[in-house]
């Protein structure tokens, strides 16, 4: 945050441009994958649930299933895994390459803070992307659930009625909070591993691998923490 406030107007414009590129790569290019994963997962879960819960007359539980299991828990988790796998690796590899090519030292030599130029835009891009992709994931999940429920004989109006009845404010802010927490992890952890590389090109794939593994572990631990505290 401090790095952001110390930027000049022209420096801010550069950082914003890099951040927009990051969002384009992290969010826009990942919309298809997130839509596919969310749609298939929600369709499969709700199809099975509608059939099985219908047998015991408990189809109202589909709302809870969509909201708690998919929107609140699996949505943030799967979105974060997609972002960590695609963009976390890319951020770590890119920053490690900057380091190996001597670009980070050159920036420091010019009096430019590498955190301002390299980390801050990627961090902001990760936060925005994570939040945007999570909204896409949850919307697609609810819509795919609607398709699955309809195909299994449930009335569409009834489906939305029980989903909305199951949704609370707590679910919404908890999901938003998770988006930012996971976005933070995906923005910071790969940047750290990328910049700790010294001078050998052979360190780049190692940094990328460590970054993505650490980010995934961090995401799971953070998710468990949310469940424990929630």
């Amino acid at each position, binding site marked *: 945050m401090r790095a952001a406030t*110390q*930027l*000049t*107007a*022209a*420096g801010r*414009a*550069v950082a914003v441009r890099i951040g927009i590129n990051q969002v384009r790569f992290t969010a826009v290019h990942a919309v298809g994958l997130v839509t596919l994963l969310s749609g298939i997962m929600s369709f499969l879960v709700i199809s099975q649930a509608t059939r099985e819960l219908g047998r015991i007359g408990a189809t109202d539980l589909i709302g809870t299933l969509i909201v708690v299991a998919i929107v609140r828990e699996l949505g943030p988790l799967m979105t974060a895994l997609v972002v960590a796998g695609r963009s976390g690796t890319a951020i770590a590899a890119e920053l490690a*390459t*900057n380091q190996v*090519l*001597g*670009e980070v*030292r*050159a*920036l*420091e*030599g*010019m*009096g*430019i*803070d590498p955190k*301002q*130029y390299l980390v801050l835009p990627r961090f902001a891009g990760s936060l925005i992307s994570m939040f945007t992709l999570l909204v896409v994931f949850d919307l697609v999940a609810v819509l795919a659930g609607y398709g699955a429920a309809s195909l299994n004989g449930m009335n569409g109006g009834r489906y939305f009625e029980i989903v909305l009845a199951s949704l609370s404010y707590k679910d919404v802010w908890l999901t938003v909070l998770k988006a930012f927490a996971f976005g933070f992890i995906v923005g910071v952890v790969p940047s750290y591993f990328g910049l700790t590389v010294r001078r050998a090109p052979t360190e780049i794939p190692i940094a990328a691998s460590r970054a993505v593994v650490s980010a995934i572990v961090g995401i799971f631990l953070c998710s468990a923490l949310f469940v424990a505290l929630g």
Partner: protein
Amino acid sequence: MTTPHAPRPLVFEQVPLGRGASQSFTLEIPAHHTVAVLGDEDSGLGALGSYAMGLDRPPAGRALTFETDVGALPERERLAFRRRVGYLPAGEGLLQNLSLRDNIALPLRFGSGASPKEIDGRVNVMLAAVRLSGAGQLRPAQANEEERRRAALARAIAFDPSLLVLEQPFDGLTARVASELLELARGGESAEGARRTLFITGQEIPPLLLRRVERVYRLTRAGALEPETV
């Protein structure tokens, strides 16, 4: 002319260099002079520029730039201080994902309060000065070695510093191009007082340039500096 109270541009005091160094050296770079220190790649010579810029600190002794131990400054002050000194690192340190033009503009965007229009104007002047007007849109990987070195020099003198630290600036260049770059770095052949102070490190310097370098030293394997006859 140097006023009696003008800070000395660059001083190395009792600095040891290289793994096998048994001696340390003291060297003062006088204002408006061009001083070159030459040595083998394994002599530790490459660290001198980093010490001058405060990117690394010598294991013993100290490097003073304008009477300041740059490496000892707090981070923000250290970055601000480096804008007073032009730096051309070994390998140029150009950012590969930026055009040559944007590389030159980068320090101005982050380190000056100038408007984008003013920065564009300044960059146009710099591009013309280093004869890169037609190659500004090239990425470093698309440019040849001479164009990259010209861009790196333009970036180093973007703030019109009074001291320039150049690491291996002439390696791989013809004597004609090296001579031209030296003149650009010095700030032209005007009165002596208008010239920049230049500190050059490298393995060799083209013989054609030697007459324009006031002092040339060679670093021995023991870590001592021996004057070379120019």
